[in-house]
């Protein structure tokens, strides 16, 4: 009886180990954990006119404007309209925001990271110096050289969280309104 017990335990350990191992092989890059990542479930994607009361600052998803903020590597010097930015998140963009008092060299370092499916703007109401937001996902960091920034960009630009895969980040031709 004792032998059976030992064998059973050994097999169970083997089983758990192999499942863990095969999981670790799967999409290694995309399953990278990000320390401090906050996740939210946002399913309401209704188009609305006017302002929306968002819970998070910057907002992480929910109802939004009919038009999106251009998010194809666009760098804004003024805050963007929240309702338009949320529409950009729906299209799979990562929104890089910073507190307006962030030092110039930090802002420049962030600008270098802003490419396709990324946009950047100051956000006066945020509590952290730098924040990264994708639909339903948010990360606060202190400094532009934090390695989690690149991990976040790799994982979420047109990532699996995107509610509208394939949507564009280009500005609508002929004006947004």
């Amino acid at each position, binding site marked *: 009886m004792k032998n059976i017990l030992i*064998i059973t335990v050994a097999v169970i350990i*083997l089983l758990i180990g192999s499942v863990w191992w095969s999981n670790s092989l799967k999409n290694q890059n995309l399953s990278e954990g990000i320390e401090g990542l906050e996740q939210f479930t946002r399913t309401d994607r209704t188009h609305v006119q006017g302002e929306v009361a968002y819970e998070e600052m910057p907002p992480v998803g929910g109802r939004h404007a009919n*038009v999106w903020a251009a998010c194809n590597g666009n760098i804004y010097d003024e805050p963007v309209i929240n309702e338009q930015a949320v529409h950009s998140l729906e299209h799979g963009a990562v929104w890089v925001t910073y507190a307006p008092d962030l030092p110039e060299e930090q802002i420049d370092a962030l600008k270098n990271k802003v490419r396709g499916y990324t946009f950047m703007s100051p956000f006066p109401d945020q509590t952290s110096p730098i924040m990264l937001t994708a639909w339903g996902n948010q990360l606060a960091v202190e400094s532009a050289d934090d390695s989690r920034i690149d991990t976040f960009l790799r994982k979420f630009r047109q990532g699996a969280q995107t509610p509208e895969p*394939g949507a564009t980040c280009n500005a609508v*031709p002929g004006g947004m309104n």
Partner: protein
Amino acid sequence: MNNQNKIILFAGGLLLIVIAGMLFLETSRDKSVVPKESSAEVGFARDMSIHHQQAVDMSFLIRERTTNQEIRNFAYDIINTQATQRGMMLGWLELWNLPLTTTETPMAWMADEHMSGDMEVMRETFTPGAIMPGMATPEEMERLRASANIEAEKLFLELMIRHHQGGVLMAQGLVDQSEHEDMVRLAQTMVDGQQGEIEYMQGLLKRYK
């Protein structure tokens, strides 16, 4: 049988079960497995790429037929999204080394019980002369081409609402029948996204009444 043999037999049996289980897990999540010609995945990829193409065509048309910026923006969004999603679906077929088109009847991939369960939606969205649920007939496309401004906007919204209703029905059919992780995820975004756009368009349409 003595005790030692029993233990060996027991251990061997357990190991076999574990190995079988692991093999099953590995193959079921292996993305390189090619779905069968008659599968829902292959049928959906082919039919939905045709379905999407008409939405793209209708959206290009309305951008030429009206100056209403909100409608034009919305059409621009549809063009980009559905054209790219078409590419994703055709890309799967290319990867699987399968023909992009078929001589099968459209919608043949959708299980009967699913079709009859949604018979009402089918009846409402399937127009005689159209090839799939929600799709516009050649005559309807011609009417859109021949109209302008408010008349064209209303017709576009009516046709696109029905087009999306049919699209939701088809995408839900794939979600219900498939275990292909990536395709199910894409189809689920179609169900949620197009459902939201239907409500948005219904709201726009009310402004004309």
